[in-house]
């Protein structure tokens, strides 16, 4: 365990803070029982899983993947359909949904290798649009078309009270989010993560060192796809349904803003970004015009003035402080 925790650049104080935060979050639904807030936070955790996976591919891998939401939806639909049509335990369904999403993601990985950055965005985005269109126009009843999957049974037996069901989903999502963030952070700081970053920043060097872009891109898409698929599965079981609108331009704009505001490519950026924007979104959702105007402005301001996102900026300032302190020591 210690060797894992050593790889992430979080020091002792950092871990204590994280432990405290997690502790507070776990205890929260026992003290505070407003279902709206709890389900908002649950949604936030689920989005955090999704955003972490997207951050992994976009920020760390440097892949212009704009189809992540479709992968998320595929995982969700996969899990949901399994829940409806098979007697398999729902948790297994979610995992299988993740596997299916990973498979689709890996298939997508291959053509992206030959493509110059922007073209990848077009490919992945078009793919997402096709998936969305296909589902929207499905009149066979299989996917439920624009109305979404009908009545997906959830993770927990219906004998539980509403409050306990809400809490159960909350804790499930929280666990998934915590595992995802920490797990991906470990991966990012492992050799795999290093390889991905080298491929992103210095492809010729990577080639010279024998780092295979194919192998690593497939792995990256596989991991990113699996995690996004899990998020989808969590979504469908939490909400009892899933609709094609989860992968539209609107949610994508929000998610991109979450990633950028938090800090693209950082381990904890998605946490900050998701939290912040969930709040903004819930406050402004009745005024979409205003909300998205503000999001657009926020996106611009952050990218131009605080390019590392909030987490990136904090890291930068801490480093400057450390350097300044060190210089002080050297002089004195």
């Amino acid at each position, binding site marked *: 365990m210690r060797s894992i925790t050593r790889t992430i650049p979080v020091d002792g104080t950092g871990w204590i803070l994280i432990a405290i935060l997690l502790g507070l979050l776990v205890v929260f639904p026992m003290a505070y029982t407003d279902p709206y807030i709890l389900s908002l936070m649950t949604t936030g955790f689920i989005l955090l899983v999704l955003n972490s996976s997207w951050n992994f591919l976009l920020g760390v891998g*440097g892949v*212009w993947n704009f189809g992540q939401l479709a992968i998320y939806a595929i995982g969700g639909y996969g899990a949901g359909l399994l829940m409806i049509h098979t007697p398999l335990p729902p948790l297994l369904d979610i995992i299988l949904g993740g596997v299916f999403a990973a498979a689709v993601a890996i298939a997508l990985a291959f*053509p992206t290798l*030959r*493509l*110059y*950055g*922007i*073209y990848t*965005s*077009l*490919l992945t985005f*078009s*793919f997402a*649009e*096709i998936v969305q*269109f*296909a589902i929207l126009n499905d009149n066979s009843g299989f996917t439920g078309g624009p109305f979404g999957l009908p009545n997906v049974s959830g993770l927990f037996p219906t004998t539980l009270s509403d409050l306990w069901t809400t809490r159960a989903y909350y804790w499930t999502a929280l666990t998934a989010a915590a595992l995802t963030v920490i797990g991906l952070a470990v991966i990012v700081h492992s050799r795999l993560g290093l390889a991905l970053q080298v491929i992103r920043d210095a492809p010729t060097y990577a080639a010279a060192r024998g780092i295979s872009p194919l192998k690593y891109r497939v792995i990256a898409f596989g991991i990113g796809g699996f995690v996004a698929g899990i998020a989808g599965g969590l979504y469908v079981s939490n909400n009892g349904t899933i609709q094609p609108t989860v992968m539209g*331009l609107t949610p994508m*704009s929000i998610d*991109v803003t979450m990633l*950028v505001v938090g800090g693209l490519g950082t381990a904890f950026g998605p946490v900050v970004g998701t939290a912040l924007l969930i709040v903004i979104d819930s406050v402004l959702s009745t005024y*979409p*015009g*205003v*909300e*998205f*105007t503000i*999001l*657009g*402005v926020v*996106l*611009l301001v952050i*990218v*131009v003035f605080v*390019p590392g996102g909030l987490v990136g900026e904090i890291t930068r300032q801490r480093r400057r402080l450390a350097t300044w302190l060190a210089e002080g020591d050297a002089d004195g």
Partner: protein
Amino acid sequence: MVVDVIAIVTTTIILGSIYGLVAIGMSLIYGILRVLDMSQGSMVMVGSFVAWAALVLAQVNPLIALAAAFGVTFILGVLTQLVSVQPLVGRASIDFEMVTFITTFAVAMVLVNVALEIFGPRQRNVPPLLAGQVSIYQGVSLPYQSIAMVCVSLGLMLVFAAFLSKSRYGLAIRAVAQDANAARLMGVPIKRLFPLTMGLASALAGVAGVFLGATYFAYPQAGDLPLLEALIVVIFGGLGSLPGTVYAAYLVGLIQSIIEVTVGLTWTLPILYAVIVAILIIRPQGLMGKRSEARL
């Protein structure tokens, strides 16, 4: 059958000319600035709203509406560059193309949603720029407006091509696209050139917006489809290659008109998307692209 073919041909020419305007702008911006400008679609939308406001609210004549749309989108384009691209130029340790993709996308978000707040989601009817039509075959008639649109579009594209190849400023633009630092050493004022180029490209999109608005409607999401079409055209034609872009514009227009005549409008987008995916998988360089760098 013949009617269908005529419909296809005329729609191809009309759509191709309009997309050509938007796509040329996009290609130009990419060639000079290395930015994939996601706000081009919203400039089309702004153009159509300006036309609506000019023709319906202010009741001026179509030429003034056209000039107004050109002017407004030109200024917006300059501002967009200054706000979303210029601060990022020369910044190390960022993926310039990805970041500007996001910032121009953010500008589009702002423009679209401001329009949504001001005008609401309703589609506004833009009155025809020119009345009347000419009958060209049994039952098929071509509105004068469409003919005028094609002429103006083609005219603009030709003027633009001449500008690029013959004028001093056009030469400078082409030089900057190939080596910006060398151009600076020759005295080319890059800090001015960049915003002006983006303004010009946005203005072309604004003009296209007037035409599209007059053909269809003006509404906040009106720029989404043109943006997509422009992206497709630009990939088909090879980013940064202007002649390729023009050919690709008519090709995409052809594809779209065939789709519209055969299976209907709702299938336009998904089929185009499928085409993009197919091209990107089979022939990633696009139609005319062989080099990965942009040349004008």
